C-alpha cells in the first residue's frame, strides 16, 4: 500500500495528499490525525466562532457582521421553508450544519497554503451517505411500506412499470454517488486547475503574466463555485428530505 503513496511534489495532485501528523490506532482502526482532520475542526471552529461572536451585541439594527450571520441563518431557513415546508423545521440544525461545514471547508480551502477537506471523495461520500440514510430512514418511519410507492410513478401503464421501477430504484441508490461526486469533482478540478496554471506562471517566465491574470480570474470563479457547490449540496439535501417526507416526485 505504501508503494502507492508516492507522488511527485511538483504534481498538481500533491496538494491533495493529506499525510499523517501522528499514528493513532484504536482497536485496529486508523484514527491518525492529519491536515484533513485539522481543517475539519478549523471549519467547525470558524463557523461557530463567527456565528457566536457576530451575534454577541444582539443589535436590533444589525451591523455588517451580524447581518452576515442573519443572512446565513435565514438563507437556510428560507430554503427549507420553500422546498420542504413547515415539516422541515426539525431538520434545520442538520441542514444548517451541513451547509456551514461544506461552505466553510470550501472557502477555507481557497486560502493560500490551506487544504480543501471537500476535495476528498471519502468526505463527500460520507456526507452524502448521511443524507441518504437519514432520508431513507425518515421515508420508512413516516410511510412504512407505503414508502415503496415512491418507486412507482402514478399513471404509468403496467408494462412500462417493469422498466420504470428498476430505473427509479437504481436512480434512488445512485443519489449519494451523484450527490458526493459533484462536490468532490468540482473542488478537485478547481484546485488542480489553479495549480496547473500556477506552474505555467513559473515556467513561462515573463509571459507568465498571462496565466497569472487567468489565475486571478479563476480564483474569483473558484470562490463563487465554493459557495455555489455548498448551496447545491444543501438544496439537494432539502429536495431529498422533501421526497422522503411528502413522497412526491
Amino acid at each position, binding site marked *: 500500500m505504501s508503494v502507492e503513496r508516492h507522488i511527485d511534489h511538483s504534481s498538481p495532485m500533491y496538494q*491533495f495528499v493529506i499525510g499523517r501528523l501522528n499514528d493513532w490506532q484504536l482497536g485496529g482502526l486508523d484514527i491518525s490525525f492529519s491536515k484533513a482532520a485539522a481543517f475539519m475542526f478549523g471549519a467547525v471552529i470558524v463557523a461557530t466562532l463567527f456565528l457566536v461572536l457576530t451575534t454577541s451585541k444582539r443589535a*436590533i439594527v444589525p451591523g455588517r457582521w451580524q447581518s452576515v450571520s442573519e443572512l446565513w441563518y435565514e438563507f437556510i431557513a428560507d430554503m427549507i421553508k420553500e422546498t420542504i415546508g413547515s415539516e422541515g423545521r426539525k431538520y434545520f440544525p442538520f441542514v444548517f450544519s451541513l451547509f456551514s461545514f461544506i461552505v466553510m471547508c470550501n472557502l477555507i480551502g481557497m486560502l493560500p497554503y490551506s487544504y480543501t477537506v471537500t476535495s476528498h471523495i471519502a468526505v463527500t461520500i460520507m456526507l452524502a451517505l448521511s443524507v441518504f440514510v437519514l432520508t431513507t430512514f425518515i421515508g420508512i418511519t413516516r410511510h412504512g411500506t407505503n414508502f415503496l410507492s415512491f418507486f412507482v410513478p402514478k399513471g404509468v401503464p403496467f408494462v412500462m412499470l417493469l422498466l420504470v421501477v428498476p430505473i427509479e430504484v437504481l436512480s434512488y441508490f445512485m443519489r449519494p454517488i451523484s450527490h458526493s461526486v459533484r462536490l468532490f469533482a468540482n473542488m478537485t478540478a478547481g484546485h488542480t486547475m489553479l495549480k496547473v496554471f500556477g506552474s505555467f506562471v513559473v515556467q513561462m517566465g515573463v509571459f507568465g503574466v498571462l496565466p497569472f491574470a487567468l489565475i486571478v480570474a479563476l480564483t474569483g470563479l473558484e470562490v463563487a463555485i465554493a459557495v455555489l457547490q455548498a448551496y447545491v449540496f444543501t438544496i439537494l439535501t432539502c429536495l431529498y428530505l422533501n421526497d422522503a417526507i411528502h413522497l412526491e416526485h
Partner: protein
Amino acid sequence: MPQFWMEDFAPQIVWLVISFIALYLLMARVALPRVANVLEARHGRIADDLDQAAQLKSQAETVISEYEAALVKARAEAQATIAQAGIEAASAAEKRNAEVADVLATEAAAAADRIATAKNDALAEMRGVAAELAKAAAERLIGADVPQADVDAAVDGAMTTNGGGS
C-alpha cells in the same frame, strides 16, 4: 490521485464524524438559538413598534376629532356673538337715532319759540316806533297834539289792515 488512497479513508471518516457531530451540537445548542433570539427580538420589537404606532395614531385621531369639534363649537359661538352684537348695535343705533331726533325736535321747537318771541318783540317795538313816528308826523303836519290813545288805535288799525300780525 491521493483521493483514492484507501488507507486515508478511515482516518478522514473518523474525524469527519467527530467534527461534524461537534459542529451539529454547537450549531443546534449554541449558535442557532443565538441567531434565532436576535431575529425574534427584532421581530418582537418591530411588532411592538407597530402596535405603539397604531396606538399613537388612534390617540392623534382622537385629538384631531376633539380639536375639530372644539373648532366647530367655537365657530358657532362666534357666529352667535356676531349676531348678538349686530342686534345690539342695531338697537343702540335706533335708540341713538330716536334720542337725536328728540333733541333736534326740542331744539327746533325752542328755536321756533325764540323766533316767535323775537318777532313779537320786533312787532311791539315797531308798534311803539310807528306810534311815536305817527304822533310826531301829525304834530309837524297839522300842529295838533294827537292824544296817545288815538295814535295807538290808529297804529293798531293800520297794522292789522296791513297784515303785520302773527
